[in-house]
């Protein structure tokens, strides 16, 4: 049992010099944190209606202005860029940004557009003009393509795409105009809290054999959806010899997926779920290390025994979960 009390803000109650935060910090921000005693810079704000105590500042996201004072409207970490103050909620739905890689599911086929559930505030839109159709990147879309839309992507299909633009009301438009994007198959979908996926240089990762006969591909969607699929070898990826540009919209899983490949997929997804259960942000190196770690200890999967998982977390991430 606990009670909620209003704690004075920007107090030096934190024994930890850097309060827990889920966002990646800019180097200059970290330098500022180290260099100053003023904890106003970043503070976990659990007083919802607390004055941030600064004059002539601008309220950003997660704040509103009342009586010339910036007041936070969500519980989270304060981020400050010069005069702009914003509060990032500890937990929230996916907030899209242009260029984000997302995984979505088609919910509706409309006239020259698909509606995609991308775990955001509203359904995303995928225009027929912003997909690659079989037959070449430069191909013009004609009327017969609009009639065949359901053959390319039907309701329930999963796809990986990039956020292209915002509409006026905040809805997003996606595009799949890259050979890496498009329909997903040969794998399984995981749904995680979006805050655990950080913005990385690449969100397509490959865990090479011995993780399954052909390795395992992992796509980390920034909207919290993660796709774990049978790996594609070097030659079969886009640009390679065996890349199958015509099979992009195929609904069929590859027949040569042996059980060992599926075991590897399950193992990797169990590892991801293990990290997610303990709020560990995911990255490619973490997954590679984790798989190497369990492989060294002879865990073939798909299950990761509890004690093994605890040791994995303790050794790789430094999280002690034995007390939980």
């Amino acid at each position: 049992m606990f009670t909620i009390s209003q704690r004075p803000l920007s107090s030096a109650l934190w024994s930890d010099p850097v309060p827990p935060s889920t966002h990646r910090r800019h180097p200059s921000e970290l330098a500022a944190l180290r260099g100053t005693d003023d904890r106003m810079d970043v503070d976990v704000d659990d007083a919802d209606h607390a004055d941030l105590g600064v004059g002539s500042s601008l309220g950003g996201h997660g704040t509103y202005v009342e009586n010339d004072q910036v007041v936070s409207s969500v519980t989270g970490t304060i981020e400050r860029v010069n005069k702009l103050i914003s509060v990032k909620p500890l937990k929230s739905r996916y907030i899209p940004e242009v260029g984000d890689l997302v995984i979505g599911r088609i919910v509706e086929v409309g006239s020259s557009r698909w509606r995609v559930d991308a775990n955001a505030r509203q359904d995303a839109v995928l225009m027929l003009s912003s997909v690659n159709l079989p037959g070449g990147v430069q191909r013009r879309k004609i009327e017969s393509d609009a009639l065949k839309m359901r053959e390319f992507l039907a309701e329930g299909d999963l796809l990986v795409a990039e956020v292209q633009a915002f509409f006026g009301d905040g809805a997003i438009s996606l595009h799949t105009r890259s050979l890496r994007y498009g329909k997903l198959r040969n794998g399984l979908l995981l749904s995680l809290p979006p805050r655990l996926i950080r913005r990385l240089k690449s969100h397509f990762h490959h865990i090479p054999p011995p993780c399954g006969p052909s390795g395992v591909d992992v796509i980390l969607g920034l909207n919290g959806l993660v796709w774990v699929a049978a790996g594609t070898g070097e030659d079969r990826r886009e640009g390679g010899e065996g890349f199958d540009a015509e099979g992009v919209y195929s609904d069929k899983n590859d027949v040569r997926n042996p059980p060992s490949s599926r075991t590897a997929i399950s193992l990797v997804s169990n590892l991801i779920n293990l990290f997610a259960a303990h709020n560990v942000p995911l990255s490619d190196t973490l997954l590679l290390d984790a798989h190497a770690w369990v492989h060294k200890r002879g865990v073939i999967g798909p299950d990761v025994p509890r004690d093994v998982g605890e040791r994995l977390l303790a050794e790789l991430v430094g999280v002690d979960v034995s007390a939980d």
Partner: protein
Amino acid sequence: MSSSRLEILNDGGLRHDARRPYELRSTSFSLGTHPTADGSSTVTQGLTSVSVTVFGPREPKQRAGVTHDRASIVVEVGVALWAGTGAQRRTRGDKRLMEVGAAIRQTFEPVIMTQLYPRSEIFINVQVISADGGILPSSINATTLALIDAGISLLDYVTSVSIGLHLTQPLLDLSAPEENDLPTLVVASLPGSGKITLAQMETRLHVDRFEEMLLLGVEAG
């Protein structure tokens, strides 16, 4: 009826459950109780226990619910069969539950910054796990916590408490037997600004006194 024989305040000035008039029941809050919801909380006040899950802002499930400039708020209230309301089974379409749902929606409509989430829906599911009076205040408290957990922008917290009047003596946080016998007022307020977003009662009472008492209740919570 047994309730008419209930002594609301005994000679020592204590209530039937040995509380003083301004004393709240033992309260516990927990956040993030439901892993798949965007936000969730469980609030227990005495023997009343309410669990709230919040989904959204998300694409509206029904096309009719779309408002182009702000989010729509949908509240669903359910009572567990074992909750012990004393009444027969209540289904989702029940009048009284719809009333509770509407009260919660009206309470939060001015507090949630709905204009930030156009064309979307915030879905609030209230489940009464056990009922011993004060379902509405507990639900409002739980909803506030669940909305905070979901990271939805709020102008302020909302806190709520029920107040009864026995002769001239006001009582805070009524239990079910007291609620049956006394005129009851439910107030939901914003502690930051002191504004009141909900005042619901079925009898006529003096409001000034209750506002004062509400602040007492908010502090105690």
